[in-house]
Structure formats: structure tokens, C-alpha cells
């Protein structure tokens, strides 16, 4: 169905943020100090070989200014005040250091170092006396903005502020005064107060579309549009938001955002096979339900990090316990190759742990903790040992030495009642199996006797006995005998069908054997009767017998009449040789029996009955959970250069040492069967004093409302991340989140109630020029729908969207050319596609339910920047590439849904083309067309109708009309106004 152009584009990889950071003291050459300006450069590029972990190449340690001055084997590395005499600078300038073409320092960095030396190579303060094994964080590092305590800031005073609806606007308005004038100048006179004002409120239809996509990821229906337009109440807007927040589709949209961060996937990844992860979807459903219920975010975090420790070891699974265990799926989302054969288990397990740490770090802390896995973090104050202390929090649960493979970590959700039902039904089925077995045994016995009829009489008993003797106990003679008679030796339950298949041939065999027997009996009886004839007549009688009846002489006829018993018939045998008759009857009965038998069919009836019973057994659901083993307290070691084969010193669990609030965590909680480390840490994170967590979460919520975060690197609040554009607003929102009881919906209401959110996107070009990225929020941004929302919107407006919530993922498969489409894979042994399996309405379910197999991103998602879960995605890219246009122009997806859309218009808007066109516009854009739009659309449909008939002369005018309307729908679906939300 969906044929996208994945060959030409890919979007599975997060983009490099080519953005640049501004050195704090840029341009202030005089004031350069070691700590502020030079150390960050040397830390990033030089510490690894010159100071860190005992490495001092050339005897040089550059971690302190005095050590640089002291120098190494080649003498002093710098001469303060004399840049041109300084060896360090010379080596760096010549490109000798750091070694390697691609590791050269930038001219800017070199200039900074040169200026620092020229300025006397000063330090900000006295340097520490000694350096230990672990790095000493400088004051500058500790003072990093995101590590500072979270306090509610006082409100800014903004004189003459216009259009400020709430606190959010005040903070934005306060900074808006810094907005530089546009390049045009005239329209944006910095002295003009208006230049710093918010844009006017957007019109109602724009606001409805914006709110609907923001909260539900779906366009508003025409009924919702007219209701909202007609609602003139002062509280129309907050009521709209409440209504949207109450929709179950809210959780699908906002759950999806969290699933990106959690690295949700329906497959294991890691190996080439990328095997399916069958029960992951329950975590997806947990997340959706949590957002719908506005589960307090602190609880949401605690459950995901330590749901199993909340549940304890109790084996009875209440609904609440199941929910908490399902939540731990968060720690089971990393790519995991440990169930596959042929992988290096130690490597694979430690990789799962590293990926899990990366997911936790970027999602909750907004830090690239993972960068300290092999060495001290190059930019942020996170030491190598910090990483392993952090890992120790998760070590008892993931425990790579006592690893639970993916199948082993499944928790059954079967209830006692389910188990009883299963036992009862299984017993019933086994009863049927036993009946089948008995019937089959009888068939085997009968088949043996039938087949024995075909072998020499003398062998029958021996053969029967040989067959009945257990294979291991058979004598050599018995083996040989059976070997000579494969048709008896091979009789088994499994082979019965083969005998059944040869039915006609077997009847013929038995009947011809009977005929042969009959002949023998007649010959023998005749001989016996002849013997009774007097000796002198015997040869005459015999001769007469041997002549055909018709050719006998009258004498011969009368002679035979005198001795009637010598003319033996089958009927006569009954009296002459009752034993022979009885034996012949056996053959007759056997032939009859074979003729009538339907062994395969008969046995199949039993199998079908048993299968039917088993099918009614309720399926056993599983949760892919993380359950820490009780009593296990494995040690954690620092791994030299991240190599699990080189464990160094042991460390104890703790948060990050640079955060003063992140104290050590008890290694083992005596009140819990498990160590309690994760529970303790999760509670610490959500206690309200952690500087990062609430900021990170509030920032994400903001980001999805404005298209950019207040910190525009949502997964990195460290040195390489971006600085907050509005630090006080961020803090205010973070505190508000906590004090509202961690209510995400509260934050939505707050943000959406602001004038900033409700502004129009339509503003003067010079404002866009002055603030191209809209970091001042003097307008709303125009945002492209992501791949999920785009597909959902197409499904919704074309009337196809299937609204069912939750459940097993909708499968994806490769189409005939290898693109990934929705469908159930049905390949033969050579991977050639066979008969398609219909999915019904499932194919039209929302994107969040489409199977997320790492190696198989659905083509339409792939082209529109699907998240690459390696291991998670902290922000989706928004690329703008030609393959997207090709998909919209030419794909089967676009063509098919345009037609659905047109059919819907025919069904919903009556027979007038004008009405159909108008409804299409309303559905796609959320507002009615202007008169000019309508006229242009009508004339387009008319001309397409003609062109359609030109393309295929046989096209009926009626069909051409539908297709022309579909072409109009196609244009709407591929237009920017549909793809973007204002």
C-alpha cells in the first residue's frame, strides 16, 4: 500500500547539530584564564594522553597550568607572555598535536590559547594542591547552569507589556526587548516599543488546528471546527483544551513522544536478524495510558525505573502490580542481541547496559552520561568512575554475569482462573488425543494383519512377532525379516496415511492373493477327491477334468457326473474344506475392510477436535519486564577504556558526583528483597530537589508546543548542548511541574493559555529575518508534521482512520521491491512473496501502533525522519528533501489515500462538486475555502476530469470525475498548508 522512496533518502540517524556554541568569553582576549577558556579546549583534545588516568605522554600533564609551565621531556610547554616561544602552541599550530588530520584544533581554539599565553597564562584562582585518580571539577564546571539548584524565580517586571495572558508571557516579554532589529531596519526600529510585542492572536480555525495537532496529533473534524467557531464564550479556549486533553488520542500523541525518548521498538535489534520483540507493545500501552490518566510524572519515572521494587517479590499479580512491572519495560528497551546465537555474550550484555544507561541519561538527566563510558567525559564534569557508579545503580537488575535473556525475562499475566481453564481444556484435548491414539493403534493392528495376508503363511507369525518386539530387542533374524518386508516394518501411526493413500492397490493385492489361494485350495481339494476315485478310472476322470466342459465327449461328461465331487468349485469347498473357506473369508473381509477404510480422514477428525479445544484456551499474555533477583548484589568495577575484560577498582552506586544533591545510594536496602538501588535513585530524582529532571521534562513539554525547546538540545543540558534561551522561564515551569504534583496536563494548560502559544505565525518578514529560529517567541512557529502525524492526518481526512486503542502492533513487511509497507509477511522458503493476508481495518490504525521493527521502518515514516532507535531518539529531525516530495507526488500511498479522500467527499458532501471541494478544503486545512480558492479548485477539477479521460480513453466520465476529485485531494494532501501546522 505504502510505496515510499526510501532508496533515495534515509532519515534514521539523528542529525549532527551543526550549531555552534559561543565561547563564554569570546572576544575578551585580555581576560582569558586557564579555567574558563583554555582548560575546556585541552580537556576535550589533550587530557586523554596528557594527564588523565595516569597517561603522561612525553612526560607532559596539561591538567593544571603549573604542570604545563613545568612541561615534560621536551622542556616547558609554555612560556607565559611569550606565545611564540611556547612549545605547546608551536606543536598545535604545526598540526603535530593533537595527532591526526581530523583532530586538529580550530583556528579559533588556537587563537584562544595564543591569547591566553600572551596575556600571561593566568588562572582564575589558585590551583589545587594535588590531583587524585579522579578529575577535580573546576568551579566553572560546577557552576554550569543546569547543575544549579532549581528555585522558583521571581516574576520579571515588564513595563507596558502588551498581550500578556499569563506568567509564561511575562518571561518571554522580558527577554523580547533584546530582540535585535531586522536587517530591513525601518519596520523594526529598536526604539519602537511595538517591535518587541507579541504577534496578535491567531484566528479560531488556526488555533483549533494547532491545538488539535499539538495535543492529539490529529486534525480537527469539521464538526469540531464549527462548534469552536460558534463558541463565543470567554472560556471557549480553555474548554477546548480540556476537551482535547480528555481525549484518549491525547495519550497516543504524547505517549509517542516519550516512546521516542525511551527508545521503544518492537524488535531486538543488534543482530542482523533483528528478531521481533513480541511483548514490547504492553510498555507502549502503559505509556499511552499513563499520559491519558495524567499519571503524576514523578510516579511515572519511579515506576519505569523501579516498578519491580515497588511490587516486591509477591507472586500474585494484581492489576496494579502488572502495571508497575509493565513500566519497567523502559529499562528493557535497549537493542538486545543476547538471545541470539553466535554473539559474544559478554560484549552484547554490556552493550545492553551501556545503551540502557544512555537512555536513562538522555531521557531523565538530559546529559550524555554515556560519553564517560571509556574515559572522563570530554566536555562535562562526569568522570569515568561516575559512569560506573551510575551503572552500579542498575547492575543488580541487569547483572551481566547472571543475565536473563529476553525470553527468560517475560512475566506471565495468566491468572489462576486462566490456569484452571487451561488445565481443564488441555485435559479434554488429551482425552481426544488418547482416543485418537487408540483408534490409530487399532488401525495399525489391522494394517499389519492385512499386510501379513500378502506374505507366505510360514512367515506370518515370525513377522508379527518381529514387529511387536521392541526395536532394541530384535534378533538378527527378526531384523532381517523386517528388512525384507518393509511394508510391514514401516507401519506406524505416522505412516498410516501412506497405506490409506494406496487403498485401491491394496484391495487389488489382497484380492489377487485370495484368487491365488482359492486356486491352490481347489487344486488340493481336487487332488483329494481324485484320490477317492477307483484306481482304474482315476486317470480317465483326471483327463476329463482337464478338458474344457464344451469339448468333453459324452462319455467324459457322464464319467464326471458319476464322480461329482471331483469337480471342485468355490461353493463346493465349503463342504469339502471348511478351513479353506474360512481362510478365504479372511481375505474377503480384509479386502472389504481396506476398501471401506478412511484412516486419514478418521484420525484427522480427532486431531481437529483436539485442536479446536486447544484453540479455546485463552492465550497467555506476557510482559517484558525487568525484575531484579532477590538477594543478588553483584559488584561493579570501573572498566578500563570501557572494556569489560579489564575491570579496575570497584565502585559503589551513586548519582553524578558533580551534583551536590546526588549523594551515594545505599548499596543494599535491608527492608527490600532486592537492593533497592533503583527505587532509591528514582525517589531521589523525583524528590523535587534534583536540578535536572524537572527542567528536562518541562523543556520537552515546551518543545512539543513550540517546535523548539527552551533548551534546544533536549537530551543534552551539558556543555555541548545549547544554552536555555529563557532560563528563568524554564525554571519557573519546572517548579510549576513539581508543585502541581507533576501534572503534565497542568503544564499543557499553562503553556497553551499563554498568549505566546496563541499568537499567529503570520508576521512581518523583517521579524523572521531578525529572529529566523524564533528564539524570542514573537510569533508562533510554522511546524512540519512528523511522519507519524502526517500518516495519521492523511488517514483521518480520508475517512479511513481506525480509532481502536492499544494492542498488538500492526505488522509491517517488505513489498516486492523491498520497501517497508503495512502487511503481514507471507514468504516462501526462498523469500518469495506468497498470498497476501488481509489485515482489514488494522491497516488503518494510528501510526503509534505500527510495528516498530528497527530494521524495517515504514517507508512513509522513514522518508519523514523516523526516529533511529540506536538506542533512543531525544529529538526527531525535520528534514526537507526531494524524496519527501516524490513520495507525496507519486507514491501508491498518496494515490490510494487521495482516492479514499475523494470517495469520502462523495459520500459526505452530497452530489454537488462545489460542496465536495469545499469539504475537502475544510478537512485538509481546518477552515473553509475563500471564494477565490473555491473557484480555482473547481476549475482545476474540471480540467483534470478532461485530462483523466485523455489519459485513458476507456475511463468513464463518472470515474474520471472521481479521479479528478482525487487529484484535487492529492494536491491538498501534498500541499504545505496540510503538511505544516501554523
Amino acid at each position, binding site marked *: 500500500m505504502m510505496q515510499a522512496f526510501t532508496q533515495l533518502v534515509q532519515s534514521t*540517524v539523528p542529525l549532527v*547539530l551543526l550549531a555552534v556554541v559561543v565561547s563564554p568569553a569570546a572576544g575578551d582576549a585580555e581576560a582569558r584564564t586557564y579555567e574558563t577558556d583554555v582548560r575546556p579546549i585541552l580537556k576535550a583534545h589533550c587530557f586523554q594522553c596528557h594527564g588523565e588516568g595516569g597517561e603522561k605522554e612525553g612526560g607532559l600533564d596539561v591538567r593544571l597550568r603549573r604542570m604545563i609551565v613545568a612541561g615534560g621531556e621536551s622542556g616547558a610547554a609554555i612560556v607565559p607572555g611569550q606565545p611564540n616561544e611556547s612549545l605547546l602552541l608551536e606543536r598545535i599550530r604545526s598540526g603535530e598535536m593533537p595527532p591526526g588530520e581530523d583532530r586538529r584544533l580550530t583556528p579559533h581554539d588556537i587563537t584562544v590559547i595564543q591569547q591566553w599565553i600572551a596575556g600571561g597564562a593566568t588562572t582564575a584562582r589558585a590551583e589545587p594542591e594535588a590531583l587524585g585518580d579522579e578529575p577535580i571539577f573546576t568551579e566553572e564546571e560546577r557552576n554550569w547552569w543546569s547543575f544549579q539548584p532549581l528555585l522558583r524565580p521571581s516574576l520579571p517586571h515588564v513595563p507596558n507589556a502588551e498581550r500578556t495572558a499569563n506568567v509564561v508571557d511575562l518571561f518571554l516579554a522580558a527577554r523580547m526587548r533584546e530582540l535585535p532589529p531586522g536587517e530591513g531596519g525601518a519596520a523594526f526600529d529598536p526604539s519602537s516599543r511595538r517591535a518587541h510585542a507579541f504577534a496578535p492572536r491567531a484566528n479560531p480555525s488556526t488555533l483549533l488546528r494547532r491545538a488539535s495537532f499539538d495535543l492529539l496529533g490529529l486534525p480537527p473534524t469539521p464538526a469540531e471546527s464549527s462548534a469552536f467557531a460558534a463558541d463565543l464564550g470567554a472560556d471557549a479556549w480553555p474548554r477546548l483544551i480540556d476537551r482535547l486533553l480528555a481525549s484518549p488520542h491525547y495519550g497516543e500523541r504524547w505517549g509517542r513522544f516519550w516512546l521516542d525518548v525511551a527508545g521503544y521498538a518492537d524488535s531486538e535489534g543488534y543482530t542482523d536478524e533483528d528478531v521481533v520483540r513480541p511483548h514490547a507493545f504492553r510498555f507502549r500501552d502503559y505509556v499511552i495510558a499513563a499520559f491519558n490518566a495524567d499519571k503524576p510524572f514523578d510516579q511515572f519515572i519511579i515506576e519505569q525505573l523501579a516498578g519491580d521494587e515497588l511490587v516486591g517479590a509477591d507472586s500474585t499479580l494484581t492489576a496494579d502490580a502488572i502495571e508497575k512491572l509493565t513500566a519497567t519495560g523502559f529499562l528493557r528497551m535497549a537493542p538486545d542481541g543476547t538471545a541470539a546465537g553466535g554473539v559474544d555474550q559478554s560484549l552484547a550484555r554490556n552493550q545492553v547496559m551501556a545503551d540502557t544507561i544512555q537512555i536513562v541519561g538522555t531521557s531523565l538527566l538530559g546529559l550524555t552520561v554515556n560519553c564517560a563510558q571509556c574515559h572522563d567525559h570530554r566536555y562535562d564534569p562526569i568522570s569515568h568512575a561516575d559512569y560506573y557508579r551510575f551503572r552500579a545503580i542498575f547492575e543488580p537488575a541487569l547483572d551481566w554475569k547472571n543475565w536473563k535473556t529476553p525470553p527468560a525475562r517475560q512475566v506471565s499475566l495468566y491468572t489462576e482462573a486462566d490456569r484452571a481453564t487451561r488445565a481443564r481444556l488441555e485435559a479434554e484435548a488429551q482425552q481426544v488425543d488418547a482416543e485418537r491414539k487408540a483408534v490409530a493403534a487399532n488401525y495399525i493392528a489391522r494394517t499389519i494383519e492385512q499386510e501379513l495376508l500378502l506374505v507366505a503363511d510360514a512367515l506370518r507369525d515370525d513377522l508379527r512377532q518381529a514387529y511387536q518386539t521392541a526395536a532394541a530387542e530384535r534378533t538378527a533374524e527378526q531384523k532381517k525379516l523386517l528388512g525384507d518386508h518393509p511394508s510391514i516394518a514401516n507401519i506406524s501411526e505416522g505412516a498410516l496415511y501412506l497405506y490409506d493413500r494406496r487403498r485401491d492397490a491394496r484391495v487389488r493385492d489382497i484380492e489377487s492373493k485370495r484368487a491365488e489361494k482359492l486356486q491352490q485350495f481347489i487344486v488340493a481339494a481336487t487332488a483329494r477327491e481324485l484320490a477317492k476315485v477307483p484306481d482304474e478310472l482315476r486317470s480317465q476322470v483326471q483327463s476329463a477334468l482337464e478338458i474344457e466342459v464344451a469339448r468333453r465327449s459324452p462319455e467324459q461328461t457322464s464319467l464326471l457326473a458319476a464322480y461329482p465331487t471331483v469337480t471342485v468349485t468355490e461353493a463346493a469347498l465349503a463342504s469339502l474344506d471348511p478351513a479353506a473357506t474360512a481362510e478365504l473369508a479372511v481375505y474377503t473381509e480384509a479386502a472389504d475392510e481396506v476398501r471401506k477404510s478412511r484412516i486419514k480422514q478418521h484420525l484427522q477428525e480427532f486431531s481437529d477436535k483436539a485442536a479446536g479445544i486447544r484453540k479455546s484456551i485463552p492465550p497467555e499474555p506476557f510482559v517484558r519486564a525487568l525484575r531484579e533477583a532477590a538477594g543478588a548484589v553483584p559488584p561493579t568495577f570501573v572498566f578500563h577504556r570501557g572494556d569489560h575484560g579489564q575491570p579496575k577498582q570497584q565502585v559503589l552506586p551513586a548519582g553524578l558526583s558533580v551534583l551536590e544533591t546526588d549523594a551515594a545510594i545505599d548499596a543494599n536496602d535491608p527492608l527490600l528483597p532486592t537492593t533497592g538501588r533503583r527505587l532509591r535513585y528514582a525517589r531521589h530524582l523525583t524528590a523535587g530537589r534534583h536540578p535536572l529532571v524537572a527542567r528536562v521534562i518541562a523543556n520537552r513539554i515546551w518543545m512539543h508546543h513550540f517546535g523548539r525547546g527552551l533548551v534546544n538540545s533536549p537530551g543534552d543540558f551539558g556543555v555541548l548542548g545549547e544554552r536555555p534561551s529563557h532560563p528563568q522561564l524554564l525554571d519557573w515551569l519546572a517548579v510549576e511541574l513539581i508543585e502541581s504534583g507533576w501534572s503534565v496536563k497542568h503544564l499543557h494548560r499553562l503553556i497553551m493559555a499563554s498568549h505566546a502559544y496563541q499568537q499567529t505565525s503570520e508576521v512581518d518578514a523583517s521579524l523572521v529575518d531578525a529572529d529566523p529560529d524564533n528564539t524570542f517567541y514573537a510569533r508562533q512557529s510554522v511546524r512540519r508534521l512528523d511522519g507519524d502525524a502526517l500518516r495519521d492526518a492523511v488517514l483521518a481526512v480520508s475517512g479511513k482512520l481506525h480509532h481502536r486503542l492499544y494492542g498488538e502492533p500492526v505488522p509491517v513487511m517488505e513489498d*516486492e521491491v523491498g520497501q517497508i509497507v503495512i502487511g503481514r509477511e507471507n514468504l516462501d522458503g526462498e523469500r518469495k512473496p506468497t498470498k497476501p493476508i488481509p489485515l482489514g481495518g488494522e491497516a488503518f490504525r494510528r501510526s503509534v501502533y505500527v510495528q516498530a521493527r528497527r530494521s524495517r521502518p515504514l517507508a512513509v515514516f522513514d522518508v519523514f525522519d523516523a526516529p533511529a532507535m540506536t538506542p533512543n531518539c531525544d529529538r526527531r529531525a525535520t528534514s526537507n528533501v526531494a524524496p519527501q516530495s516524490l513520495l507525496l507526488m507519486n507514491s501508491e500511498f498518496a494515490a490510494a489515500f487521495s482516492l479514499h479522500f475523494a470517495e469520502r467527499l462523495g459520500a459526505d458532501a452530497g452530489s454537488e462538486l462545489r460542496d465536495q471541494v469545499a469539504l475537502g478544503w475544510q478537512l485538509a486545512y481546518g477552515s473553509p475555502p475563500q471564494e477565490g480558492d473555491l473557484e480555482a479548485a473547481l476549475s482545476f477539477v474540471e480540467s483534470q476530469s478532461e485530462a483523466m479521460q485523455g489519459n485513458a480513453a476507456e475511463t468513464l466520465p463518472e470515474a474520471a470525475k472521481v479521479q479528478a476529485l482525487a487529484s484535487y485531494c492529492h494536491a491538498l494532501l501534498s500541499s504545505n498548508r496540510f503538511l505544516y501546522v501554523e
Partner: protein
Amino acid sequence: MTSNQTVTRREFVKAGAFSLAPLALASLLKDRQLLAGPIKPNVHGQRFTLEPRPPHHEPQAHAMISLFMQGGPSQVDLLDPKPILTRMDGQKFPGKIKYDDVGGASSKILGSFWKFSKHGQCGTEVSELLPHTAGIVDDILVIRSMRTGVNNHGQSIHAMNSGRTQRGRPSLGSWLTYGLGAETDELPAFVAMRDPAGLPVEGVLNWSNGWLPSLFQGTVIRAREPRILNLEPPARLRGDVQRNYLAYLDRLNQQQLDRFPENTDLAARISNFELAARMQGAAREALDISQETKATHELYGLHEKETQEYGRRCLIARRMVERGVRFVQLFTKNQYWDHHGSILTALPATCRKTDRGAAALVTDLKQRGMLDTTIVHWGGEMGRLPVIQNDAGRAKVGRDHNTYGFTMWVAGGGFRRGGTYGATDEFGHHAVEDIVNHFDYHATLLHLFGLDAKQLVFKRNGREESLLSEQPGKIQPGLMQA
């Protein structure tokens, strides 16, 4: 704004054709002050594009066309003559045989039904079944010592086409385009051309990107319209219908842009529709063989029913490479060369379909001066055994799989011209001389493209993955021009 570091929107859109450049970057870079800061290192991920990039060393080959003969062409009947089979026809094979299908196996030697004779200046012996190949022997190198060592189709296909016997890895074309990009931004970098009669064994995995970004997946040219999905609309939406649609769409988009002047994203998307239309035109043009001369049509056998289909694909392959496509692979239909039985009639038919087009391709590339830089590969995943399979009379006999010694040929792009390389034993069962394992072939192939097979790596799960995947791929100088 005039800084040379500023990327204009136009350049952006161009770079955006096959890359992932975020448009937001343009506006970021507009603020020149930001350019004073240090550039962030690549810690958040890598950016992948199909822009051409220089290889590790000076390359000889720039493009490749692989004619994949799926099923296993019988080397002892085509390119590796074994007179002893004829002499011992019907006798018991004296050594051990590695069968795949033990069911129909026999150990009776089967002499070839066909005559071999020497051709060209190099004197390579070719079977009468391949008269056109016989005409190009001085331009091709016949490798008689290929080996993968796994006797079934799927695994051996993966060995030849993706470096290892396992499923799920990137194919050769994906590696080449990952390493080198392509010389075109209007056509796909890696093109797969399937037989209209069906997919080869392993289906679409033959051009899979595995775990390389999907940018490097092979784009399929289909037998029916639309020939390239998404690059062309369904038939009913062609021509005027599409022109009208684009014109109307442009109207809608312009209207929107008028409301948001200076919105680079909206503007770029309009340009991307223009670019998409150009790409569509470029694909159409590349597929349009009516522009070729009558002589060319005849060279490829397009005037004859039997050779037409394959010949057309060979010709399109040349047109693709001519336009900057890096790698084209043509597949025969499912098990086309898998002659377990009736080899007497089936093998000649298979040869008739493919021989002419394959030879024409080499001749044509040479005439155009493209052979020096374009590699042509002809071969399958295996060869066949010297003994009979399905011993049910002359008309019914066939040969079972043989991956221990089989033949393929290569031409152009720095491969040696004329003659043979390596040898099988006297019966043609095992490669014994100058053995070329699939990984040796790959190492040599990448070398000709200027790539070091050990350095062309992709980081995955903390490891560096390569086409060789830790197998000891050896560059074989004897395969290359001195």
C-alpha cells in the same frame, strides 16, 4: 550574508536532494557571530549522504554492472572445459562428491553435451552455448576458481552479494554507495533490475542495505509501470494530469508562502517539488531506450524475441552508469540457472536469453570508452557438479550444486583483460589453483574502486563492521591488470 561560509538556500536545496541537511541550519549560519565558536564534534550521530566522495586511494573503477546469474551456471558446460568428463561419461566418479540434494544423487560422471573451442587472441575456451561471450573473451577475465563453500542458494547468494552467508547484512551495492556516493543527484545511486518473471532466491534481500542507512538500499527498476516506485506516478496520473496537479499544487503552496515570506522551509519544499519533477524526468530519460541507435538495439538483441528482455535491461544498465549511477545489478528470475534436471534443453535456453545482452554490454562499454572505468561482472552463487543428478535418461539428467569450484567472469575497471585465472581439479569439482573465495573477490573489487576493504567500515553495536566482516579477504594481484 556574503560570507563564504553562508549557505544559500539554493545550495541548500541542492544538497537536500539526497541528504539530510536540516534547513534550520541555513538560518543558524545566517548569524555570523555564531561562526566564531568552535564547531561541535560529531557526538550526536553521523550525517549520511549520496554525494560523491573520494576513496582511500586512486581508483580504477568508478561504476559497476553485475549480471547476477542466480541458480548456479554449470561451469563444466560453459567456461571450464573438462575433457575427462567426456571420456569417462557414465562411469563412476573416482573421488568423493559433496552433494546438496542427496535424494537424486548419483556418482555417475556426466560429460558435457556441448563442444568447447578456443577464441580470441587469448585463446580462452568457451562452450558453443555462449557464442556471443566467445566474441568478447579478449576483454574479459574468466575466473575458474571461485569458491564460497556453502552448498545452498540462499547462503551462497549472501556470501557473493553481501560478504557472509548470513542474512541481514548490507549488499555489495550498499557498501559501494556508502563508501563512494554517486555521481548523480537525479538518479538513484544503486539500482537493482529484477527479471519480470520473478524475484531471485532471497527476494528483496538481494539489494538490502542491511543495517546501513536505508539511503544505501538498492532502488528497483520494475518490469511494469511505474518502473521506479515514487520516481514516477501511476499511469493514470501521468502527463497532463500530473502537470495540472503540479501547477495547482504550486498555486496552493505559493499562496501559503505569501503568508509566510522568508520561511525557508516552505520555500525549500516548493523547490523540492521542482527537483522531484527533474528527478522524475531524469529517470524517464534514462529508461528511454528509443534514443539509442538501431545498431545499438541490434547489438543487444532487442530485435529478437528471445534476447529482447534481458538485452533491454543490459542496455538500461549502461545508460544508468553513463548518467552517474554507481552500481547496477541485474537478476535472473528465480533459480533460472539451477539445472538439477533436463540440463540438455534448459541450459541452452538460459544461455540464449542472456548471452547476447551480456556480451553486448561489454562491447558497448568498450566502444564508448567506458569499460576502463566500469566493471562488468557475470556469475552466480555457485556452479554445478561433474556428476549426474536425476539419472532418468539423457533428456532428464541434470547437475547438483557445487560451491567448491565454480566460474564467473569479470571485465573492465582494472580487471585483467583476456585469459583465465585459477583452476578447478581435473573433474571441475573443487577449486585447486589460485582459489578466489568470495571475500578475496570482494577485497579485490573494492581495491579497484580505490577502497580498502578493511577500512570501509560502519560502526554498529560498538564494533566496526565491514563487507569482509573479519574474513581474511586477500587482494589477488593476478586478477588485476599489471
